[in-house]
């Protein structure tokens, strides 16, 4: 059984159909990459997996349990849906929904071991590097193991150790990305969702980040990597999916995809 299984996932942003029946699988110990152009729906897929977005159709299964599922009812918003608030039942349903969300929100998915390092790094700028790492271990009670993991993360990113007492907003872009990954690692993920870790970084830094992604994967963490830098992503991944305007158009082993003519032309910029 795969660690993560997505089937027929649909996501709407209001009337916009952003994901159209996306299905993919991530096996235990694998690095899988999801590549595609701007607006293809890569980030949307990750956000639907980690619970930041609600799918309108389809299911997300993690570790054998359904963590998100959509019903046909929650389609695009139509104006007449607001009329449900005129009835007592409609209002009661809304209020009940408010409470239900509390138990199924993204934080409860984190507790299951699925951690999302969001796009744009999302570090806590006014807190120190050390405090940022502490938040990463927020849900964990095994303090001794946390201390060990923290050491391990700091070994992976020696630069962060030098900056522990510094406030995170003063770090460079690359260092902030390191911090975002280190922080995600501290929650001991079974599956790590990385959203564009190379975004806006200098080539040297990109190379370093991908090296670290490889190391983390070698340590046994399963990774689902979303990237625009298809060349690098195909270099570290075992398997890859190509997303185009909300649909998966191609899937297969990363090595084969790197040789595929269509991919080479569309995503790797090689015209030969």
């Amino acid at each position, binding site marked *: 059984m795969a660690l993560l299984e997505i089937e027929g996932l649909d996501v709407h942003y209001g009337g916009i159909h952003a994901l159209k029946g996306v299905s993919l699988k991530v096996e235990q110990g694998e690095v899988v990459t999801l590549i595609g152009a701007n607006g293809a729906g890569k980030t949307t897929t990750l956000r639907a997996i980690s619970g930041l977005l609600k799918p309108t159709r389809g299911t997300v299964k993690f570790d054998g349990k359904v963590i998100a599922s959509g019903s046909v009812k929650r389609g695009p918003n139509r104006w007449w849906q607001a009329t449900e608030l005129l009835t007592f039942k409609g209002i009661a349903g809304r209020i009940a929904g408010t409470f239900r969300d509390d138990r199924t*929100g993204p934080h409860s998915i*984190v507790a299951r071991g699925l951690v999302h*390092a969001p796009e744009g790094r*999302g570090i806590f700028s006014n807190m120190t590097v050390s*405090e940022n790492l502490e938040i990463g271990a927020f849900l964990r009670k095994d303090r001794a193991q946390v201390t060990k993991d923290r050491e391990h993360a700091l070994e992976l990113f020696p630069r962060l150790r030098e900056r522990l007492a510094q406030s995170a907003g003063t770090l460079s872009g690359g260092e902030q990305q390191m911090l975002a990954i280190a922080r995600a690692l501290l929650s001991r993920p079974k599956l790590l969702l990385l959203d564009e870790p190379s975004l806006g970084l200098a080539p040297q830094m990109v190379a370093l980040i991908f090296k670290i992604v490889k190391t983390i994967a070698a340590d046994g963490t399963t990774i689902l990597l979303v990237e625009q830098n298809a060349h690098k992503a195909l270099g570290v991944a075992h398997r890859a999916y190509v997303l185009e305007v909300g649909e998966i158009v191609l899937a297969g082993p990363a090595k084969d995809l790197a040789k595929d003519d269509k991919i080479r032309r569309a995503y790797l910029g090689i015209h030969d």
Partner: protein
Amino acid sequence: MKSVQARIAALRPHPVSAVGMSVLPFAIAVVLALFVDKVVGPGVGATWSKILLDVGIAILLAGSLNVVNGYAGQFSIGHAGFMLVGGYAAAWLTFYGSIHWFGSKETVGGFLGNGELLFLSGCLLGGLVAAVFGVVVGLPSLRLRGDYLAIVTLGFGEIVRVLGQITARQPKNVAAIKERSMSELANNLGGAEGFSQIPGYTTLFFVYLFAFVLLVLVYRLKYSSKGRALLAVRENEIAAEAMGVDTTRAKVVAFVFSAFFAGIGGALYAHQVGALDPKELGFLKSIDLVIIVVIGGMGSITGVVLGAAILVILPEVFREFADYRMIAYALALIIVMILRPQGIMGVKELWETSWWRRGALAVRAKLRGGKAS
């Protein structure tokens, strides 16, 4: 080399000393409150001890608001609503309770006598009722962000004020009050004229007791993992949620905590002024409290204490400008916001500022030099 577990076990204090360490700050708070009441208050004279009282209540209110507006980064402008709720609950208990159980509406008993114990339970009741309102307002509204939340809290404050204004009047005489039970009197909160003749139990001791207890609690909160979770919500809500912080719950807990102390603050206020007028505790009062937090520094405990002291004392100092007092006050606010838009302390505490550290180093160096010579 010892294992990590062993090193952590060695750091863990003895259970008795752990309890001692957790209680000690509160014991110090009691002693300090007594000190303010018995030594500082009489020492500075009647006018200044009244100002001191106002400063203490402002610290309590702004300090609690700081948990929501500063730590959690939510924008609440309905704090006076919680004050009003707490004030009503406490006034109901002490005013009608005094008449029912002590036979008169005057204060009875000396220090920590029956009257003051009734007042103390009134304060706690006020806090609890306000906290319940905190849950009721918090659960649905804390899903909203920024301006939208501000509007909901503003609406809450106004609703409480209007509800206060449509309550029944207080019965005219003691006999009429004695005829009715406490629960029957729960709607007699004075209406638009306000709840009057509240026994004046508020002393420097109670004000500073609650203020110091609040300061200890918010200090501990700030440096605990729960507090860091709140700060994380302020910094980046999505990232906090992605790290496993239940952001809705964190915000509701912050809201309830804040409402509890606002209720106590309202109770202290009511028993100081002697009357609770809903018009006084409307939108403008909430804004006053927000100003204290913003001027002091959102999220800074020492900043809010400083802000409360400055903003309460400033109008008193400007008294000689007579009619131009509020203009001078407003000008002072504008100047502070131009010079230090992040507030006096920013997000830092006093002991985290660079000049404090430099001063501490200099003092330490001097001490060491003094010993050597």
